[in-house]
């Protein structure tokens, strides 16, 4: 391969080449042999053929070379072999006088040349120029244009732009001095030249001043093909870049729109107008009638479709026209024979967007029917459309409809629907959801779908709602219970994640459960052995929490009955009740030590909880506790030998607690034993456990860490080893939360079995203490950050009221320093938006900067065609050449020649200077121009009032010019417009 191009001519002698040419396999032979061979032999055959071609292609005989190249072209385009190594050989054949060889060489080149990787591309410049020249046969020019429009690099485009120019100019097709023959032959080149021009323009904005004017002239050509090609080129330019510079051409496009009967052209024109209409409202007003006319009158569906799309995207205010278009779409949707129209109808409605959602609402029935379409693409589109129309008012209806529908649908689409519902409802931290009870039960329903494979997301949302939405917890626990007690669900691997969430929810919010025994039974049912270890571990941990809760509640209950004469709810002060209050409220006032401040809240909730407990009294008999204990012992016991560490450890935690309880003598005695022992017996242990679980876990903003201001004088980069030494001197006690620490210290001696769980929090505290800097500030005040290290700070305060308010409160908590600003409860979403926003915006700016070059240059030519702003003399010569070219075309044939020379001389200077000037104006123009030409701006650019930045750009480009030429032009355009 390496030796292929350079050593070819020298290494190949005439001997082999003569043999080659005599015995060379033709393309037909190759194809036949490829077709006749057995399936597996193809690679071997291909590599043999390739070796053959490598040899033949070096032959000095053009015929042999051409055949070899043809074979290679075949292999590369059909069999995907790499042909880039042969680029040089293709180039060798390009100058061949034989049309056959030339054609083959151009074909090979156009199929294999890659603008950025083909390094021999510059070598083609001369040959292309020769073939483009008017003296060469039009066939050759046509081939050259093809290659140019496919594989040109920016450099090539820049160098050859002046050579495209004569082909683009109307000379050939309109001059009377030319012979008839010449006329006929060269006219097919003009449309091709127009397209090649488009390619050159988009590659290299430098050539805009040279080529855009002739391209504009093409629009008024009498030859429909030229017009078509030019319109196509502009459609492409308008859609690829900033459309505002093309606004001055609107009258011309409008004329074509009303005159042309060619559907191809009309579709392209509509595309252009779809982009231009939003820039200029008066343009839209002008266009509505012709568009409606087309919709009514045209028989071509493609044209009607394009009209509908244009109306939907560019004319959101013209109700009458929209009505017509929506009616047309309805026809599309109800067309049973043509799935294409149904699909496109749905897509068109998607464009309509929320602003004109009435269009979708009206065709609602057909849209929903499309959910059952045999074509998955149509179903998908219908779903997308429906999800685009979800508001908080209809979210319930739509979600229920989709979830029910998913039950009957095929697995793939069912999951697509579930996914759509989950994403839409979960968007922006459930911004659409008002009734969380409903949503939670909907999530439960989704899990019942036999095809449901969205376990992960449902799991996430169940837990997430549990954390964020306090008022949804009772319902959440109920849903979780329903899921847990159903033994059938355990067999479905897709649901394991959901079950894990359900188990966690039931454990974490156990106080809302109504039947603890049943819950424990569900969590320990035999079929849980089907679960993967990690989920099982969650189950066992949930059992642990339930156990702790039941015991402490039982004790509280006994105590309450003891002091019942005083009224249960006022017995705040006993540590157990307080602790229970904490658990009920899911907060930890006692930890912060500001009990009095939140006293009113704690007084409220415990009352309700205790009354709740009393109602459930029958469950808290000694028997029920015993039963629970027995259940746990029998079911969890074997797990203490489980292979999986997680399961084993958690099982041992639970068993350890039970053993510890049983070892306390009071256990054996009467019920009253609990009460008496409450100071140092079972009661204390259980309260300790309960206190541990009663700490509420709250959501934390993903970027909360970023919001923490670095305190004055804190050096984050420095090694922390010194700090760690200082800190370990202090005891752990002050660093831990008050209630928790005190108790754990008191119980140090007795809690040997329960140690693991306490241990973990202890370790956590320790860790936090050492590396507190990397933790979120527990208390959100900046001042409190200095009080670090504090482990186990409460994250959440009391709150009440409805779910949405709750959300606000909850998330505010993690953003406390800026309470006022962050009224919206969406820390995570905020972060996500920032994170998502960064990349695309960076990308688009990069893209825009290139577009700016192009559209800016075009703007310059179309609006102020008087040359360059900064390099006035170059500009003027350029302008004059452009003018002469136009004006002169009727006079004689010798002029284009001279003009070409002029251009060539000019080009070198211009290409560099114009680039420079563009950069410069980009850099500086914006600042300076703003004051300079205020009055000029007012006068000259009224036609483009819609786009602010467009103004700016235009303005600074015009900076160097005299106001004279800008002023008269713009109003002229405007007059045409209206």
């Amino acid at each position: 391969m390496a030796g292929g191009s350079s050593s070819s001519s020298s290494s190949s002698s005439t001997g082999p080449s003569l043999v080659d040419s005599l015995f060379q396999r033709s393309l037909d032979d190759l194809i036949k042999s490829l077709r006749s061979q057995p399936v597996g032999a193809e690679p071997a055959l291909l590599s043999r053929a390739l070796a053959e071609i490598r040899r033949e292609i070096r032959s000095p005989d053009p015929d042999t070379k051409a055949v070899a190249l043809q074979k290679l072209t075949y292999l590369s385009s059909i069999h995907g072999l790499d042909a880039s190594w042969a680029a040089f050989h293709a180039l060798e054949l390009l100058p061949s006088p034989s049309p056959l060889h030339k054609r083959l060489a151009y074909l090979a080149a156009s199929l294999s040349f890659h603008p950025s990787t083909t390094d021999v591309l510059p070598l083609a410049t001369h040959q292309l120029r020769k073939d483009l020249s008017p003296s060469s046969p039009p066939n050759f020019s046509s081939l050259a244009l093809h290659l140019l429009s496919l594989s040109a690099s920016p450099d090539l485009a820049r160098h050859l732009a002046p050579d495209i120019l004569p082909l683009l100019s109307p000379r050939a097709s309109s001059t009377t001095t030319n012979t008839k023959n010449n006329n006929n032959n060269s006219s097919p080149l003009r449309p091709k030249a127009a397209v090649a021009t488009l390619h050159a323009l988009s590659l290299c904005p430098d050539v805009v001043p040279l080529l855009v004017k002739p391209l504009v002239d093409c629009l008024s050509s009498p030859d429909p093909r030229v017009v078509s090609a030019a319109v196509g080129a502009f459609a492409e330019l308008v859609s690829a870049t900033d459309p505002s510079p093309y606004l001055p051409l609107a009258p011309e496009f409008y004329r074509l729109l009303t005159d042309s009967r060619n559907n191809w052209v009309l579709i392209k024109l509509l595309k252009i107008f779809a982009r231009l209409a939003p820039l200029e409202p008066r343009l839209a007003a002008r266009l509505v009638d012709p568009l409606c006319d087309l919709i009514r009158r045209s028989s071509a569906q493609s044209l009607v479709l394009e009209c509908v799309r244009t109306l939907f995207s560019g004319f959101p205010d013209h109700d009458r026209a929209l009505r017509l278009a929506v009616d047309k779409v309805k026809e599309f949707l109800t067309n049973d024979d043509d799935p294409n129209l149904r699909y496109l109808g749905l897509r068109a409605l998607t464009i309509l967007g929320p602003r004109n959602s009435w269009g979708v609402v009206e065709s609602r029935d057909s849209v929903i029917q499309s959910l059952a379409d045999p074509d998955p693409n149509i179903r998908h589109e219908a779903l997308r459309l429906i999800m685009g129309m979800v508001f908080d008012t209809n979210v319930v209806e739509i979600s229920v409809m989709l979830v029910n529908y998913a039950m009957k649908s095929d697995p793939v689409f069912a999951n697509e629907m579930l996914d759509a519902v989950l994403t839409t409802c979960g968007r922006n931290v459930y911004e659409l959801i008002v009734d969380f009870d409903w949503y939670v039960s909907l999530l439960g329903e989704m899990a019942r779908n036999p095809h449901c494979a969205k376990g992960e997301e449902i799991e996430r949302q169940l837990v997430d709602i549990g954390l964020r939405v306090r008022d949804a917890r009772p319902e959440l626990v109920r849903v979780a219970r329903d899921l847990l007690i159903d033994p059938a669900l355990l067999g479905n691997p897709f649901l394991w994640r959901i079950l894990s969430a359900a188990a966690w929810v039931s454990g974490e919010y156990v106080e809302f459960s109504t039947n603890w025994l049943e819950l424990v039974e569900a969590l320990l049912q035999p079929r849980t052995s089907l679960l993967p270890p990690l989920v099982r571990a969650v189950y066992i941990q949930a059992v642990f929490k339930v156990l702790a809760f039941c015991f402490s509640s039982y004790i509280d209950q006994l105590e309450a009955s003891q002091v019942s004469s005083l009224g249960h709810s006022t017995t705040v002060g006993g540590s157990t009740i307080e602790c229970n209050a904490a658990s009920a409220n899911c907060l930890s006032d006692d930890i912060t030590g500001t009990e009095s401040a939140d006293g009113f809240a704690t007084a409220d909730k415990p009352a309700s909880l205790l009354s709740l407990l009393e109602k459930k009294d029958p469950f808290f008999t000694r028997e029920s506790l015993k039963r629970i204990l027995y259940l746990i012992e029998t079911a969890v016991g074997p797990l203490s030998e489980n292979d999986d560490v997680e399961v084993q450890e958690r099982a041992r935690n639970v068993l350890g607690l039970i053993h510890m309880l049983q070892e306390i003598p009071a256990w054996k005695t009467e019920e009253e034993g609990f009460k008496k022992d409450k100071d140092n017996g079972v009661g204390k242990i259980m309260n300790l456990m309960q206190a541990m679980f009663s700490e509420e876990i709250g959501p934390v903003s993903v970027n909360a860490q970023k919001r923490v201001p670095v305190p004055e004088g804190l050096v984050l980069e420095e090694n922390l080893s010194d700090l760690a030494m200082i800190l370990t001197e202090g005891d752990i006690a002050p660093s831990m939360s008050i209630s928790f620490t005190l108790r754990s210290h008191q119980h140090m001696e007795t809690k040997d079995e329960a140690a693991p769980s306490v241990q973990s929090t202890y370790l956590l505290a320790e860790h936090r203490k050492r590396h507190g800097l990397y933790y979120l500030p527990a208390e959100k005040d900046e001042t409190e950050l200095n009080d670090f290290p504090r482990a186990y700070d409460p994250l959440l305060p009391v709150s009440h009221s409805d779910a949405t308010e709750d959300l606000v409160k909850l998330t505010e908590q993690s953003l406390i320093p800026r309470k006022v600003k962050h009224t919206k409860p969406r820390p995570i979403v905020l972060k996500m938006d920032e994170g998502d926003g960064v990349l695309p915006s960076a990308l688009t700016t990069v893209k825009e900067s290139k577009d700016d070059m192009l559209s800016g240059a075009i703007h310059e030519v179309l609006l102020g065609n008087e040359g360059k702003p900064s390099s006035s003399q170059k500009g003027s010569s350029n302008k004059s050449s452009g003018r002469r070219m136009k004006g002169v075309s009727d006079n004689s044939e010798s002029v284009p020649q001279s003009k070409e020379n002029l251009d060539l001389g000019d080009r070198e200077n211009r290409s560099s200077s114009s680039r420079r000037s563009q950069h410069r104006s980009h850099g500086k123009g914006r600042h300076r121009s703003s004051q300079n030409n205020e009055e000029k701006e007012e006068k000259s650019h009224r036609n483009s009032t819609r786009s602010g930045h467009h103004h700016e750009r235009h303005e600074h480009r015009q900076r160097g010019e005299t106001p004279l030429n800008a002023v008269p032009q713009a109003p002229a355009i405007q007059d045409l417009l209206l």
Partner: protein
Amino acid sequence: MIHFVILLSRQGKVRLTKWYSPYSQKERTKVIRELSGLILTRGPKLCNFVEWKGYKVVYRRYASLYFCMCIDADDNELEILEIIHHFVEILDRYFGSVCELDLIFNFHKAYYILDEILIAGEFQEPSKKTVARLIAAQDSLVETAQEQASSISNMIGQATK
């Protein structure tokens, strides 16, 4: 614009590929593999459009051949279907009821025809007659040149012997 044109047989064999946007050979192979998986699996009587990486691929099946064209998201699918049909009609006219074998053995001619219809991914020639005339003119040019060349090479060959 049209980014590429691919002709696939029902078995997934490539019959013609034309790329109007720069793709490396590796990307090309990948694109073909992905699209044949996407398109050949679709049953009859479904719509002719598939979405693919932010683009749209319009395909249409004629006998055992799938004609696929990839376009931008805002292009008109129905127009592309018409272009495909236009292309097929011209092929049909040129080869005389075209079949897959015609395209296999005359792949370069299929390219020449396609080049008259599309240039740089833009539709350019709505007249079937014009295309037929242009192709015929080129063919005759090539043939006469070939005849001349072969006679000259004969002469040279004889002379060198």
